[in-house]
């Protein structure tokens, strides 16, 4: 599915860009799951990271669905926050970093691949 996120070469002004759409919905879904679990974790006295990151992912997904370039900034904040948090939690223990960094970084790559499409496509506010 990642190849579908590549920006199409033809004019796409008002059509649906499926790669961005799918990525948007996937982020909404993941964000919702992580947010709900994160709130549960906060209620249990655990880390606030998941609640916040889930929210950030949710926002990213919504912005992507509206073709808003702000999605990029939203996710960059999530990712940088994740990086800082992950380092604070376990530092250079790379096995411990796998669940913390690998998936969020893959999402980062996919989100960044949306930039050309978002630039060309008018946002739906």
């Amino acid at each position: 599915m990642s190849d579908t996120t590549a920006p199409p070469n033809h004019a796409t002004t008002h059509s649906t860009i499926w790669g961005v759409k799918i990525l948007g919905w996937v982020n909404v879904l993941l964000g919702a799951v992580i947010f709900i679990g994160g709130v549960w974790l906060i209620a249990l006295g655990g880390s606030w990271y998941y609640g916040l990151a889930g929210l950030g992912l949710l926002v990213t997904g919504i912005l992507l669905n509206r073709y808003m370039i702000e999605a990029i900034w939203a996710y960059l904040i999530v990712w940088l926050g994740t990086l800082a948090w992950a380092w604070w939690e376990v530092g250079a223990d790379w096995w411990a970093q796998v669940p913390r960094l690998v998936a969020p970084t893959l999402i980062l790559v996919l989100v960044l691949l949306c930039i050309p499409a978002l630039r060309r496509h008018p946002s739906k506010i």
Partner: protein
Amino acid sequence: MTRISPFAAALLMAGTFPLHAQQTGTDTPQNPPAEAPQSDAVSESAAQAETDSAPPSEDVAQIVREVGSDWPYWGGDADATRYSPLDQITRDNVARLEQVFTFHTGDLPEGTAEGKYSPEVTPLKIGDDLLMCSAMNILISVDAATGEENWRFNPGVPNEAIPYGATCRGVSVYTNPQAAEGDACATRVIQGTLDAKLVAVDLETGAPCEDFGENGTVDLWQDVGERVPGWYAVTAPPAIVRGIVVTGAQVKDGQAEDAPSGVVRGYDALTGELAWAWDLAAPEQNRNGPPEGEVYTRGTPNMWTTATADEELGYVYLPMGNSSVDYYGSNRSEAENEYATSLVALDATTGEEVWHFQTVRRDVWDYDLGSQATLLDYQGTPAILLPSKQGDIYILDRATGEPLTPVGELSDLPKGEIEPDFVSDTQPVSEWHTLRKDDLTEKDMWGFTPIDQLWCRIQFHRANYDGFYTPPSSDKPWIQYPGYNGGSDWGSVAVDTERGILIANYNDVPNYNRLVPRDEVTSQPIHKKGAGEDSGSNAEGAADPQEGAPYGISVNAGWRNDVTGVPCTRPPYGGIRAIDLATGETLWDRPIGTARRNGPFGIPSFLPFDIGTPNNGGSVVTAGGLVFIAAATDNLFRAIDIETGETLWSTVLPAGGQANPITYEVDGRQYVMVSAMGHHFMETPVGDEVIAWALPED
């Protein structure tokens, strides 16, 4: 993308999920060492170098064999150090090792034995022969240089006798000091079987020793009570001290309070007659067997692992397990509380207790002592070194049981709500050395992705956890860390007495447990199962009834995510460490086990990184400066530099290497050997091979 990412992450992580291994109380033993001086010189030639060591008493004097060209005891030498003076294979040439032969025992699981094999066998090497047992107790003699079979003897153990796993960790050998060479059974091979027999055969021919018991067999069910196959089984080689064969048995855990006794018995090595019984709850009354019509005290702590023989003092050291019902203790007797999870020294000639040293007070965690203790000289005092599942390593005075290294005490431990009057709020710990890591925190939770890591964090906070020795609970699960796999389990540790280095491999995994209220318990104890019903081979305690206690027990061994099967805690799950014997300080410590066999959804990742897997089985150390060990779930057999911890050589085994290796010499050529037979609980492939490696003959 999202599906991609977890998957990719998973690939990267390669996780490791194998887990745990061990069993609690059930199996394991080893054998006897007597004390023997170790010498660098290879003992004489073939036959066996036997040195007389302080002959104990008259004609029961027992030969103490030396390790070197031979590997005469399960623990290597009589002291169970697992140290060999051989030095042909060195750090410089170990990379040139090549396989010399592989021997197939032919014993593979059939029918109801499928999924229950965990042979764990370590051969002995005496003279020109390798002596071993297969998973189902077939005794086999093999030429140590060629791998050709000399003879075999099959005692015909039925599948129904398999307790938790089909295991025979090894055999022991006894030479009749009165016999002339060539007499039948002058030297005999003795094993305990899964169907609870002692079997003695002639080392030369494999023929049963007719003077031993009934045609070479002694029935250990005698005076134990109702015969329920699989409930009472021997998996460890016996210890032989001053002509007395000492054995305990594995009593399958968690079935019922009214379980077979944990009695430990001594038998005359020549006649098989009962010399004494040590019933910890009635030691005087039952010393020569229970009165007519009675049985040994039911449900008492048992010894499933290998005892250590001390020919010089005439003692035998028993690493005791816990009572039959592991996770609930209010119904236990004072005697059980006194001896459970203790190292007990008995006078091997009389069966009388000399001393005991308890490692857990009021054990409700299944922290059986699983490791064979090692005899050594500690700063001038004859000592015994004892590793525990909690990772603590104690060194005691062999004569008195007094600690020679500092023992601290934890206090104000939580007592829980289940049985606060029973649970102890203090526990001993070794201040000399422990393999145990710090308590878990939420940050230690793991997974392939943020989502499963999040789920494990939620589980972490939903459980009761107050650190080490959190008592059992039923309203919520509780986290037990370290889990019952250790720390150190039946493979025990190896001691390089020349360099003064202790090598310990260990597990680093928690269990996620819950006491199950009686009305929710669905499993039946083993004696109430129908004839056709499987007695089960699931992980120890996975769902045990604990009949007689108000609760059954549910154990998630290794605490794996119930959806993905991925461990909830971060790697490493197992390590190996070198400890300075003089100071107790760590010289090096590293994960053991690569991620090659593990990955998401059970797909091997082939990643060569040392993630640190659960491991089961010990190591061998050599004068050549090498540590040989398999044990991990990556199916590798490896040689590690004892000075640095670096892996210098490794080879892929055809099945799991959950067994202790050995090294020996024939005609001036040094061999290293390990069995590759797999382990159901460790989730490694099953096989039937014993494999030898040596340097190429130039």
